[in-house]
């Protein structure tokens, strides 16, 4: 909080300068220097109790009219403030000392804290207030670009599901999260206003204390504990709107008719149905198009932008109140928050309530008791369909194929919204039921999930009185998460506009939707119950012996986790408005339930040593055991050690001449991390329940099948992590930096043992083995610059932070099949690279086709030409290979700009990524790819983005750069959409991720109303993006087939009120 207060003081000082004065004055001059005699620029000089002041120039000088007897105040960021009474002298020179507290930042690390100065591992940290500088709805979103070593991709904008996926240093593992010392599954539901700080443990030396959970790095969140001093109550509230940040324009009615006709003509020319464009009988007639544009929907034709109908404007509000205070005996913090999101698609809503209370109390001379309670109540509702989706129906009757996004983009723009009482629908190829996004939104029923997570942490620490510095602590955490969902699906009907072979169009009788009529109104209810218990006992010692400093920790930790879920389904509810299980009849699979449990144990040890805070060393180790692996063997328990050293050059005598240097430290570390993210019990030979079988005359009986071939030697995956780093601070913190280079070697990667085995083995080999290996290397850079200078007679404070993270992860060992072509071997390739054919532009003439190899049947001019890699004269799966990049940027960067001037403050956060590709082809989870709305014109007969058809090759646009217009039902046209380098676009981008502009009223005014502080602000995110992608394609968009909830742009305004 300190820098923040200091910042406020500066702002206030700025305001004060604006006021005039009327006393007799003398012109006083002076110079401000630091303790080394270097001039300090931008120091605010003001007359105490007035609003008069100035700033020092670059050479540290200042001048001001000062009345005799006044007191001058000198304030500068990072320096201890100085006050000096004016007694009539003509010159006042001031020496300002570095603010030791400011530099001696304490960072939270695993199982404790460390002084930033003497830290030897790679840890990025951010203060909680940074998180409040954006309209983010959850913590994961705001970390992007603000911390080095971290890459973030936010693929969805759906309320309640819009968290970003975070990776540390290109790791293939997910991040482990720790809140106030205890592991949690995620941090999204924490109210950003409750957060004191966030630390990212990036290297082996910092993360090894988390052993088997640490391979993907660790993010530690520390919540506010309250400060000694007056009670403060702060209210922070904002409201605003949200909309799609990016979305392509689709064809309107007449455009659809035109391009559809051209596409059909092209197809007919290609398959020989017609031999010239003259013979073509248009699918959509001129009359049809006129009917679309005559403004009369009752004639069965209209011109509707369904994209805008579905994706509108969302409403959002956030409120929170925090209270904190304390004295020598007790400190406390209470925070409560509300988040309400009404999504920009109707029916997608999310509400969250947070409550947190932290208390720390000295209960005896040597005893400290802490308790933290938190509760999060979430309430998410959606229509019966997912916004975007994966394939396969989920438990809640959702079918990804019928996601709202998919139905919306597929919808024919020439259909009126309604015909009579019914919404209209688009007959999609391959689907027996029509698309109708509006009916799906408003008539399909709804899904509703409520969740409650309650967490309690307690600890009791005893400072052993007879050994100074020795403390024993017992602590525990209990976390209970419940969620309850209720999903109602109601049948509904839509009408479709169908064209007969003779060209006449007619409206169908109402057709049933995917919900089906046979089962009537359906209801599914489910509950999940999770609890986890963590217990820790630790002992710490800290002491100094002359110039030797020692600090040690031993700790034991046990974690126990249980989960249960139960769901029930009924159908044929007489009234959808009475959705109770009692009112329906059970479905064929009425009840589903299962449970799970896991347990782990670990012992942690750590010793830190420093000599005169100049030479630093740290050793840690964790002995970790997991239930997932065979007991009583060496595979259950693993030891994860780390070592790191540091050298503070700036403390050396020979560096004392470099007075511009505040601090300079070199660091080196190595450590071993583990990951047990594999299916448990693979060492056992087990039978799992299969589907029942029915014997004639007997009925259904259970069946059980062998669930896997056991492997008793299975063990966890390991990452050996190396880090070299440098921290520096120059010119009193005006320039600061942390630069790290790392190399992580991950081995014993649990590999699905499918490849490399003959299929005649029938899968009889242990399903997982520890075989694969990969490595990541890269650099993280954080550079900060802060300063202030006078502008218009008022001080302008600014701070610039730039982060750059580069990491490249590649496979060193991969279970490749020995006989596949070189270009299909994964070994040596970058992790998660896109795979497909190499495209060589489009065919421009029949001769080119004659002289080429092709896939399947003969292509047409305007189809994609693929490279025949093995030269066998045909294009097939053997010509596919790993030629693309990953869809996660290898290079991410952020630029954070803070400005403060005359009561105004501004924060801009730019983020960007490079060295990655956005795939317009959809790739299923199993690696099969498929055409998407971005790669196939008129996919499933539905609408297509305008950029695609406008740029498509056609007889009228022979120079078109996109594959030819086609209705793509069989044969070619379909093949264009398969994965190939044609669709892998360079995704590099920069976007204004967040921006906030605020104005704080002068305290002189607000205090009259008993208000300590009052600030107004406006904020936004995803405000603009610069990239080279087709208009409307978001660089963070996932490669999926069924659409997704587009990333959102938020525009909010609010106030912060402190009492």
């Amino acid at each position, binding site marked *: 909080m300190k820098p923040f207060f200091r910042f406020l003081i500066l702002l206030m000082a700025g305001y004060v300068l604006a006021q005039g004065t009327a006393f007799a004055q003398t012109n006083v001059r002076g110079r401000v220097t630091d303790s080394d005699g270097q001039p300090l620029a931008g120091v605010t000089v003001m007359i105490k109790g007035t609003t008069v002041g100035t700033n020092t120039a670059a050479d540290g000088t200042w001048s001001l009219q000062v009345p005799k007897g006044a007191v001058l105040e000198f304030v500068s960021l990072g320096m201890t403030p100085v006050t000096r009474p004016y007694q009539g002298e003509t010159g006042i020179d001031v020496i300002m000392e570095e603010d030791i507290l400011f530099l001696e930042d304490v960072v939270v690390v695993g199982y404790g804290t460390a002084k930033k100065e003497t830290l030897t591992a790679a840890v990025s940290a951010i203060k909680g207030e940074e998180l409040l500088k954006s309209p983010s709805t959850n913590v994961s979103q705001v970390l992007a670009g603000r911390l080095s070593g971290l890459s973030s991709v936010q693929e969805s904008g759906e309320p309640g599901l819009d968290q970003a996926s975070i990776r540390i240093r290109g790791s293939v593992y997910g991040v482990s999260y720790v809140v106030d010392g205890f592991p949690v599954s995620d941090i999204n539901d924490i109210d950003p206003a409750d957060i004191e700080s966030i630390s990212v443990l990036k290297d082996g030396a910092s993360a090894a204390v988390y052993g088997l959970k640490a391979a993907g790095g660790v993010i530690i969140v520390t919540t506010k504990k309250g400060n000694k001093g007056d009670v403060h109550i702060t209210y922070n509230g904002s409201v605003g709107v949200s909309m799609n940040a990016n979305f392509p324009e689709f064809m309107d009615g007449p455009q659809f008719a035109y391009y559809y006709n051209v596409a059909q003509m092209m197809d007919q020319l290609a398959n020989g149905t017609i031999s010239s464009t003259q013979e073509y009988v248009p699918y959509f007639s001129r009359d049809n198009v006129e009917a679309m544009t005559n403004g009369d929907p009752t004639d069965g034709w209209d011109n509707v932008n369904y994209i805008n109908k579905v994706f509108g404007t969302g409403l959002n509000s956030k409120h929170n109140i925090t209270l904190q205070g304390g004295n020598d005996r007790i400190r406390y913090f209470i925070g409560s928050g509300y988040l309400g999101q009404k999504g920009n698609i109707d029916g997608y809503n999310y509400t969250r309530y947070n409550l947190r209370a932290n208390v720390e109390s000295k209960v005896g001379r040597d005893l400290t008791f802490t308790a933290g309670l938190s509760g999060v109540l979430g309430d998410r509702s959606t229509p019966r369909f997912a916004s975007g989706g994966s394939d396969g129906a989920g438990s809640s009757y959702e079918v990804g194929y019928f996601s709202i996004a998919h139905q919306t983009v597929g919808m024919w723009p020439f259909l009126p919204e309604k015909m009579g009482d019914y919404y209209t629908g688009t007959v999609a*190829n391959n689907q027996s*039921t029509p698309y109708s996004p509006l009916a799906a939104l408003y008539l399909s029923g709804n899904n509703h999930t409520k969740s409650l997570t309650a967490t309690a942490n307690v600890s009791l620490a005893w400072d052993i009185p*007879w*050994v100074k510095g*020795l403390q*024993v602590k017992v602590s525990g955490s209990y976390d209970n998460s419940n969620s309850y969902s209720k999903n109602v699906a109601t049948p509904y009907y839509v009408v479709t506009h169908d064209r007969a*072979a003779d060209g006449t169009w007619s409206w169908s009788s109402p*057709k049933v939707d995917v919900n*089906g*009529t*046979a089962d009537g109104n359906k209801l599914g209810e489910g509950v999940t119950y999770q609890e986890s218990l963590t217990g820790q*006992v630790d002992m710490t010692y800290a002491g100094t012996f002359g110039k030797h400093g020692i600090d040690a920790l031993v700790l034991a930790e*046990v974690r126990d986790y249980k989960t249960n879920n139960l769901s029930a389904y009924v159908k044929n509810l007489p009234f959808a408005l009475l959705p109770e299980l009692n009112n329906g009849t059970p479905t*064929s*699979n009425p009840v589903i339930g*299962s449970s*799970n*449990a896991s*347990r*782990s144990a670990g012992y942690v040890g750590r010793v830190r040593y420093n000599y005169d805070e100049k030479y630093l060393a740290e050793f840690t180790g964790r002995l970790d055991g997991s239930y997932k692996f065979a*007991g009583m063997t060496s595979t*259950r*328990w693993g030891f994860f050690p780390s070592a790191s050293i540091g050298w503070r050059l700036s403390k050396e005598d020979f560096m004392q001449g470099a007075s511009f240097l505040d601090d300079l430290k070199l660091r080196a570390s190595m450590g071993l991390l583990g990951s047990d993210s594999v299916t448990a*019990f693979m060492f*056992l*030979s*087990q*039978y*799992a*329940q*299969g*589907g*029942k*079988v*029915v*014997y*004639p005359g007997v*009925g*259904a*009986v259970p069946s*059980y099948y*062998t669930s896997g071939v056991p492997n008793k030697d299975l063990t966890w995956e390991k990452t050996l992590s190396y880090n070299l780093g440098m921290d520096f601070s120059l010119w009193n913190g005006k320039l600061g930096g942390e630069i790290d280079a790392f190399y992580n070697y991950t081995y014993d990667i649990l590999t699905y043992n499918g490849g*490399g085995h*003959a*299929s*005649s*083995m*029938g*899968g*009889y*080999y242990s399903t997982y083995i520890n075989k694969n290996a990969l490595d990541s290397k890269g650099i993280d850079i954080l550079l900060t610059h802060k300063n202030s200078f006078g502008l218009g007679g008022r001080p302008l404070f600014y701070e610039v932070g730039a982060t750059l993270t580069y990491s490249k992860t590649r496979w060193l060992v991969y279970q490749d*099949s*020995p006989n*596949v072509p070189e270009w299909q071997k994964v070994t040596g390739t970058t992790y998660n690279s896109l795979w497909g054919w190499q495209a060589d532009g489009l065919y421009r003439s029949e001769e080119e086709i004659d002289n080429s190899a092709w896939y399947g049947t003969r292509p047409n001019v305007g189809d994609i030409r693929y490279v025949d890699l093995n030269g066998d004269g*045909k294009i*097939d*799966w053997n010509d596919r290979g790993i030629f693309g990049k990953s869809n996660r940027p290898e290079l991410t960067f952020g630029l954070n700009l803070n400005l403060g001037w005359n009561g105004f403050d501004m924060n801009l956060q730019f983020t960007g990524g490079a060295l990655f590709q956005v795939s317009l082809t959809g790739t299923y989870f199993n690696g099969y790819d498929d055409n998407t709305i971005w790669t196939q014109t008129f996919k499933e007969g539905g609408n297509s983005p305008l950029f695609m058809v406008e740029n498509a090759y056609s007889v009228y646009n022979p120079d078109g750069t996109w594959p030819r217009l086609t209705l793509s*039902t*069989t*044969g070619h046209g379909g093949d264009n959409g398969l994965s190939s380098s044609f669709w892998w676009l360079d995704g590099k981008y920069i976007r204004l991720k967040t921006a906030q502009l605020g104005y704080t009223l002068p305290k002189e005014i607000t205090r009259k109303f008993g208000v300590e502080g009052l600030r107004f602000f406006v904020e936004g995110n995803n405000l603009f993006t610069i990239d080279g992608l087709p208009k409307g394609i978001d660089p963070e968009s996932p490669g999926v087939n069924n659409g997704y909830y587009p990333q959102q742009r938020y525009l909010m305004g609010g106030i912060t009120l402190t009492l």
Partner: protein
Amino acid sequence: MKKNIIALAAVAAMLSGTACTKMLDLTPKDSISDKVMWAQVSSAEYAVNSIYSYVYDIYAAYPCVAGMTEALTDQFKYGSYLYNSLCFIPSEIAYGGNTLTANYVDVYLGAWDSLYGAVRRTNEAIYNLHTLGTGLPEADRIRLEAELRLMRSWLYFELVKRYRDVILYDEDMSAISTDKALSDEADVWTFIKGDLVYAETNLPVKEQAKGRLNKGVAYALASRALLYAHDWEGVIAAADNVKEQGYDLEANYAGVFKAEGKETILSYNFSYADNITHSYDFYYTPGGDYSLVNEQGGGYGTPTQEMVESYELATGGFPDWTPWHGTTTDTPPYAELEPRFQATILYNGASWKGRTIEPWVGGTDGWAQWRKETQPQGRTTTGYYLRKGVDESHDLSARTQSVQPFVILRYGEVLLNKAEACYRSNDAVGANAAVKAIRARVGLPYSDLSGDELWAAIRQERKVELAFEGLWYWDLRRWGDASKNYPTGLNAYQVHGLMIVPAAVSGQYEYTYVSVDDKDRNYPARMDRFPMPSSELNNNAKVEQYAEWK
């Protein structure tokens, strides 16, 4: 410092010990240990039940993922031009030619991977029965082994039928390795026969089998499988053994597919209560059944005019179809065709679910022109719908899924298997008797034949008696006929349908003979053996692709 160390040591002692490792011993919540599984007869049967489920796969999943194999012959046509299974792809396979690459054939017709997966689990079950099931009563142990070995012989039969020379694995699980050579077809047959004999000997008779696999199934399967091995004696013996088990022809041909009776040797069953259902009706019911309840479904595939013309008149002999090979308003002689036609194919005017089938343009069921209308959506492209196997009592407004059993093995087929074996072993008397019995059931006349005429009669009976039971494509293949020109084989022909339009006179229709193909069909001789999949070739150093696929 001393006290420090003491305190440290105390804590360390407190935390260490073996208790922690014990604490980490959890057991899975979703599976059960193999030892428990094979400790009792009831649970051992659970493990065998999962092997029994391969009967379904052998019948419905392995033959062709693109659709019924009849669609690869002159019998059946999928009407949608969309590039999907149960749509255009079966026709694409039938057009053959260069499309039939090794990879393509493996994707749509290959079953190597799945069959070996099933073989492995069957062998694993036999291995576990031997090693972990030692505590089971001997009679049960032998019975369960017989069930498993019958399934294994069936799986290997399905392999040898497609690939001839295949890799042999028995229950010695340690023999499984990535590099393994092929065995000669003859050795595979020896292995199959060994399992069949064990099953025939040790399985109970049907009455005592409680719905599980029995002797009759083993004999019936042998009569089918040994045809492929040209073991005529074996086929005849197996067929006679089936008869000895008490199986016989039902009096009513249509009834065989509606209820389990003396002709049914093995059916695969379903249950609404347990949500074990299939979609046969959804795919093949006349489209009108669905449009009447405002839904879409049915009519994915329909019988061809060629299949219709394969049926004799009820009095014997074939009608003259020439008038219907052009355009005419004469009514085709549907009503005069033999009972098996009536039981198998729905035509214009046929009675169905209390209504009349309307496969004409604009009718309740409707007609769609192949290729011109990409998606028939329940309408027929041939003028017919399938009746055999479709459940007439299925109320589509109540539910989509179906539970009528699949008839897998029946006595009618066994008789025809015997007829073929007798003919091949120059026993015309035996062959004539079997053919006669089959025809007599449907009231068709028959006088004893010999030589090529006898063979033609047997072939004709297999085509119509066993129509749409998943056998015809494989019959043509094993006879070596498939690559010959039509009508003997599947080369150089197109299939047809009748486009029916209501005529000016009420109640009359105009019938027009139309092709429902884009081009001539083609069956390359190499299709008589399917190619090995790349997943085998790439990983097994001891095999090479079969010569015809190199």
